[in-house]
C-alpha cells in the first residue's frame, strides 16, 4: 500500500479540500437531522461566526484591538430591521447594513490610526458603551427601549423547507461567502500588508506599505462583517432592543475570537460555537458559569495557547505532517539521527501565531 505523505504539497491540498467538502456536507446535512431549536442554535453559531471573523480580520490579522464590535453588530441589526419594517424584502435589507457599517468602520478607523493597544481598547469600549443609550435616545427610529419586531423570513414553497431550515441555509450561504472572502483577503496583497503591519509596523512602513490606508480598510471590512452578522441576527431572532447590544456583546466577541484562535480563519467558527453551546451546557450549573469558563479560558489561552482552539488543531496537523513525511535515508555508515528529531521541510502554517512575537 502506498504511504500517505502529508508533506507533499499536492497531497496536502487534496486533504484540505476533502476536509472542507466534508465540513460543508455536514453543515448542509445538520438541519435535516436536528429539531428546530437546535437548528436555531446552529444558525446563531453561524451568525456569531461571521461577526467574530470580522473582529478576527482586525485584531487577529491586523493587530488592532476592538472592544466595540457590538456597536457595528447593533447598527447592522437595526438598519436591517428598520428597512424590513419599511417594506424592503429581507434579502435586500442586508446590503445597506453592510455598506453603512463599512463606512462607519472606516470612520472609526481614522482616529484609531493614532491609538494603539490599550488606548484603542478604551475608545472602542466607549463606543460599545454609548450604543445602547444612543439607541434608546433616538426612539423614533429605533423604537426605544421597547425595541423592534420584524417578521422572520418565510421559506418559499418551492424549497420544501421548514422556516428554520430555510433561515439556516440562507445564513450558511452568507457564512460560506464571508469566510471565503476573508480567506482570499488574507492571502491577497492587502492581507499580507495587514499581517506585516501587525507583526512590525515600522518594518511594514519601511517596505512601503501605506499604513493608514491598510489599517482604515481593515477596520472598515471588519465592521462590515459585524454589520452583516447583525443584520442576519435580525432575521434569526425577529426582535431587537437596545439592551441586547450591551457592552458584554463586544466583550463576548473578543472572548470568542481569542478562545477560537487569533489569526486563524476557522478559529471564529469554534469561538462562535463556544459562545452558543457553553452557556447551554453550563447554565444548568449556574447563570454565571459560562462567564467563569470564558474568563478563565481567555487568561489560560494567553498563557499556554495563544492560537486558541484553531492553533492547537494546527499544531496537531503540523505534527501529523511531519510524522507522515518520508525520512531521508541516511548515507551508509552515517550515524542514525537522534530519536525525536523532526524531519526537515515541515511546512509552516500561514499567518503564524505571531501575536506572541515581540513588537
Amino acid at each position, binding site marked *: 500500500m502506498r504511504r500517505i505523505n502529508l508533506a507533499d504539497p499536492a497531497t496536502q491540498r487534496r486533504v484540505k479540500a476533502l476536509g472542507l467538502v466534508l465540513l460543508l456536507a455536514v453543515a448542509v446535512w445538520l438541519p435535516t437531522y436536528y429539531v428546530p431549536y437546535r437548528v436555531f442554535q446552529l444558525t446563531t453559531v453561524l451568525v456569531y461566526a461571521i461577526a467574530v471573523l470580522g473582529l478576527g480580520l482586525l485584531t487577529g490579522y491586523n493587530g488592532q484591538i476592538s472592544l466595540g464590535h457590538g456597536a457595528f453588530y447593533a447598527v447592522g441589526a437595526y438598519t436591517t430591521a428598520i428597512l424590513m419594517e419599511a417594506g424592503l424584502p429581507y434579502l435586500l435589507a442586508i446590503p445597506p447594513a453592510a455598506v453603512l457599517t463599512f463606512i462607519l468602520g472606516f470612520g472609526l478607523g481614522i482616529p484609531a490610526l493614532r491609538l494603539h493597544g490599550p*488606548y484603542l*481598547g*478604551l475608545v472602542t469600549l*466607549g463606543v460599545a458603551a454609548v450604543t445602547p443609550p444612543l439607541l434608546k435616545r433616538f426612539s423614533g427610529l429605533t423604537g426605544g427601549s421597547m425595541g423592534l419586531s420584524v417578521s422572520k423570513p418565510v421559506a418559499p414553497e418551492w424549497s420544501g423547507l421548514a422556516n428554520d431550515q430555510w433561515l439556516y441555509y440562507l445564513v450558511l450561504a452568507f457564512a460560506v461567502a464571508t469566510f471565503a472572502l476573508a480567506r482570499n483577503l488574507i492571502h491577497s496583497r492587502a492581507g499580507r500588508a495587514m499581517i506585516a503591519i501587525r507583526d512590525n509596523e515600522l518594518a511594514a512602513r519601511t517596505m512601503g506599505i501605506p499604513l493608514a490606508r491598510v489599517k482604515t480598510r481593515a477596520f472598515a471590512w471588519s465592521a462590515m462583517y459585524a454589520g452583516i452578522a447583525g443584520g442576519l441576527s435580525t432575521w434569526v431572532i425577529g426582535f431587537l432592543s437596545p439592551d441586547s447590544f450591551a457592552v458584554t456583546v463586544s466583550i463576548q466577541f473578543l472572548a470568542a475570537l481569542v478562545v477560537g484562535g487569533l489569526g486563524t480563519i476557522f478559529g471564529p467558527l469554534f469561538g462562535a460555537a463556544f459562545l452558543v453551546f457553553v452557556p447551554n451546557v453550563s447554565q444548568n450549573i449556574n*447563570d*454565571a458559569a459560562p462567564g467563569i469558563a*470564558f*474568563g478563565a479560558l481567555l487568561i489560560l489561552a*494567553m498563557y499556554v495557547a495563544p492560537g486558541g482552539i484553531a492553533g492547537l488543531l494546527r499544531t496537531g496537523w503540523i505534527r501529523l505532517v511531519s510524522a507522515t513525511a518520508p525520512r531521508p535515508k541516511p548515507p551508509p555508515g552515517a550515524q542514525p539521527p537522534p530519536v525525536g528529531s523532526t524531519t526537515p521541510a515541515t511546512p509552516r502554517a500561514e499567518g503564524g501565531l505571531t501575536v506572541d512575537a515581540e513588537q
Partner: protein
Amino acid sequence: MELFIQQVISGLASGAIYASLAVALVLIYRSTDIVNFAQGEMAMFSTYIVWQLLQNGAPYWLAVGVTLVASFIAGIAIERVIIRPVEGRPELIVVIVTIGLLILINALAGYIWSFQVRGVPSPWVARNVDLGGVRVGVSTLGILAVVALVVGLLFVLFARTRLGLVLRAAAENPESSRLVGIRVGWMLALGWGLAAAVGALSGILVAPILFLDPNMMLSVLIFAFAAATLGGFDSPGGAVLGGLIVGVTENLAATYVDVIGTDLKIIVPMLLIVAVLLLRPQGLFGHARVERA
C-alpha cells in the same frame, strides 16, 4: 445660578468617585505599564464583600476597613498569580488577559451573589447642609472628604515615606532599582494592592447611588478611563483633577445640553477620551512618551 452651583457640587461628588477609580488605574499603569480593564470589576467585587459583611451585621466602617485590607491582599495576589506571567508581553496579550479578568470577576460575583440588584446602605445621613445659600447633601460632602483623605494619604505615602520612594523607583527604573537591592517584583505587586484598595473605595461610595449588581462598575469604569486619560495615565494628581472635571462636565452637560439629558451622560466621557487622545495623548499632566525604534 443656584442650580448651576448645585450641579457643579454634585458633579464634584461623582467626580471624586471617578477620581478614586482613576487613581487606581494610574497606580497600576505607573507600576506595570498596564491599562487594567478589570479595575472596575475588582471594585465591584470589593463592594460585594462590604455588602456581605453588612448583611452579617458588621458595623459600616468596620466592614469598609476589612474590605479595603482584603482588597489590598487580593490585588497583590492577582498581580503575582495572573498578571506576572504576561508582564512585558505585547500589549494585545496583556489587554486580553485583563479583559479575561474582567469577565472572570464579573461572573464570579454573579456566581456567589447572583445577578440580583442589591441595595447598599449609605453611611451618610440624608440631609442637606446650607453652605452660603447653596444646599449641599451631606453625602456629597462625605464622599468628597473620604476621597480627599485617601488621596492625601497616598500623596504622603509616595512623597514622604521611604516605602513611597522605593515604590516610585521600582516603577520608574526597574533595572537600576534591582541593582540597589529593591525587590521590584514585590513593589509592583504592592502597587496593584494599593490600586485595588483605592479602587474598591469607588465601588463602595457609588453603590448606594447606583445599586449593587455585577455590572454596576462598567459605566463607572468608562468615566474613570476618561478621568485618567484627561489627567494623564502616569499622573495620580492628574487623575484626581481629571475625575473632578469629568464629573462636573457630565453633570453640567446633562443639565444644560438637551440632546444629552440624563440618558446620554455616558457620551460625555466617551467624547472626552477621544478628544484628549487625539489632541493631547499624554493628557493634561502626563508625560509624552518618547519611542525609540
